[in-house]
């Protein structure tokens, strides 16, 4: 299913459509958002570098990873780093996002860094100026694919960091401008959902044609160590894709982390294994045998959970109500309900009581 998400990013947008966009949400209980981001980034890069996608290049905006990390990641995935300048540009918002190093350098406190000048990497020294950031992203993209009809993709590794430096509205504006820019084919970004309120998360999900949620294996409290351990190796990947015809396709998968690779498996095969592994290892048998399972299925539940087609009639103990309720014969009552008209059925406390009586009902108490 993650591969389906990759394919949608690869195929991009039609002429006149907004760019395909994806939000990846994670939380501290399943902090694999960056891992999923890296997977999607490398998959899309693979399509782009082999010219199998709509976009001809990708601009990666990094807030939480250094450019050297990205280079290492691509190398480990088998990419030829020497040719990456043909399809990749990195806008480095990690190294000096607020210009502190530049200020210290200007005052002679620190020396100029001895780093290799890289064709791919541009350093952004003021992430608070989103207009400038937008221009830089476009400039890098056009530098890759040229002006004209060729398109490029954009990946932002932490929208949370961008919002921390600026504001929700300005980041939403930036994303909206990127989405509506003709040369942008697809965009995806990572958001840490537990650092934002529901309004912010909803705002970005509304702007996305796809939403991917990285969740822990179980929603139970992870105080128990073995559950915590499981949540650091595996998790769930929930994705919803908005199709052009308006329908939403929802997919669920499990993922596990093995030797730096993230592997996605379908939920059905994973579910039983998860259930097995979550049962605590104790000396008594907690499993059900087949006979016990069939006996459990035969147990008659209390009437309100029987879910039969008959509507539930609650008998409140008065014989008079068995034959007539509110002047309507009992047999007819059911028909009236079946006809689907609204009915208000009023049970009087006492058959003898006149309506709107002025008598104090406590007058007959003899204490």
């Amino acid at each position, binding site marked *: 299913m993650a591969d389906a998400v990759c394919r949608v990013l690869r195929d991009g947008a039609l002429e006149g459509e907004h760019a395909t966009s994806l939000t990846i949400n994670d939380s501290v209980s399943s*902090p694999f958002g960056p891992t999923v981001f890296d997977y999607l980034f490398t998959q899309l890069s693979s399509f782009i570098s082999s010219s199998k996608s709509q976009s001809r290049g990708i601009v990666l905006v990094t807030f939480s990873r*250094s450019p050297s990390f990205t280079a290492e990641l691509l190398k480990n995935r088998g990419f030829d780093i020497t040719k990456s300048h043909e399809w990749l540009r990195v806008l480095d918002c*990690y190294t000096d996002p607020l210009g502190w190093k530049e200020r210290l350098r200007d005052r002679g*406190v620190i*020396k100029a860094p001895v780093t290799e000048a890289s064709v791919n990497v541009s350093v952004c020294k003021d992430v608070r100026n989103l207009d400038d950031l937008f221009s830089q992203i476009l400039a890098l993209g056009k530098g890759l694919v040229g002006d004209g009809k060729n398109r490029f993709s954009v990946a932002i590794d932490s929208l949370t960091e961008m919002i921390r430096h600026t504001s929700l509205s300005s980041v939403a504006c930036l994303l909206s401008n990127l989405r509506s820019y003709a040369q942008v084919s697809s965009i995806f970004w990572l958001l840490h959902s537990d650092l934002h309120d529901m309004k912010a998360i909803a705002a970005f999900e509304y702007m996305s044609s796809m939403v991917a949620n990285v969740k822990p294996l179980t929603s139970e409290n992870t105080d128990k160590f073995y559950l915590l351990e499981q949540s*650091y190796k595996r998790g769930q990947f929930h994705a919803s894709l908005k199709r052009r015809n308006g329908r939403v396709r929802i997919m669920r998968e499990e993922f596990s982390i093995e*030797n730096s690779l993230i592997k996605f498996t379908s939920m059905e095969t994973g579910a039983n294994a998860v259930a097995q592994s979550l049962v605590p290892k104790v000396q008594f048998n907690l499993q059900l045998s087949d006979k016990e399972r069939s006996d459990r299925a035969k147990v008659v539940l209390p009437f309100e959970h029987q879910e039969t087609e008959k509507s539930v009639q609650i008998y409140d103990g008065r014989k008079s109500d068995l034959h007539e309720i509110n002047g309507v014969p009992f047999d007819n009552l059911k028909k009236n309900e079946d006809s689907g008209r609204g009915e208000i059925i009023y049970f009087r406390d006492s058959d003898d009581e006149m309506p709107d009586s002025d008598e104090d009902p406590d007058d007959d108490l003899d204490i």
Partner: protein
Amino acid sequence: MNRPATLLDDALTLDDDEPIQKGRLILVEDCVETSGAFVLHHLIKRFLSSSDNIILFVAFSHPFSHYDRILRKMGCNLAAQRENKRLLFFDMLMLECPADLAFVFNLWMIDDGVEGGLIALYGNIYKAVEVNSSNKNITVMIDDISLLEVAANGSTKDVLNFMHYCHTLTTQFGCTIITVLHEDIYSSGDEFTFPLQMEYLADITIKTEPLITGLAADVHGQLTILDKGTIGRSGSMKGKIHNFRYKIKENNRLF
């Protein structure tokens, strides 16, 4: 020199050629019931026992004499290490406010105030790391980040920016940053996101918590080490979790 490795040392692979704590940001999260200071003391002793290591200690919490007394009981002479330049001690308690940082470190900042003070502090940490990292492993310890926030007049944003810049030191120089955060200070209100922000920023989180079952005479608490994993030389990601009990004795720690 062979020494018995403790569980904590094993969890951080301190004896390996490529220990996992190198070039990482480690967050120690503690609370009132279980103070995480002993983790810092243990790591100070451990790192200073090897001649390849230098510690840059930024102290907001206690003066030098406090750490000297504790480490002396553990068999480590901090005063001697300071004289040998193996321990660089920034005593922040002497300063009244972050703007003093600019004055103390002889920097002229156009804007005073919290950001200027933190930039000055970062500049000096950067200089010290740059000078020493060429032939030694340098570890920066900040005790503690909750008091750093107090010194920054409660400006969480500036503190997070400062910690982000410290994180860039790990990638640029391969140094290790260790800091302590008191989680229970932030248990309500808007500031709840600050521990979460730090957990996202940190590569390894060490949590000291009381036992779920309550107080015990022979166990002071439990340590949980959460390692998000990194891509090592072999390309393998080693995300791991460790959990064990500890007891603090007068001059030792038992894990």
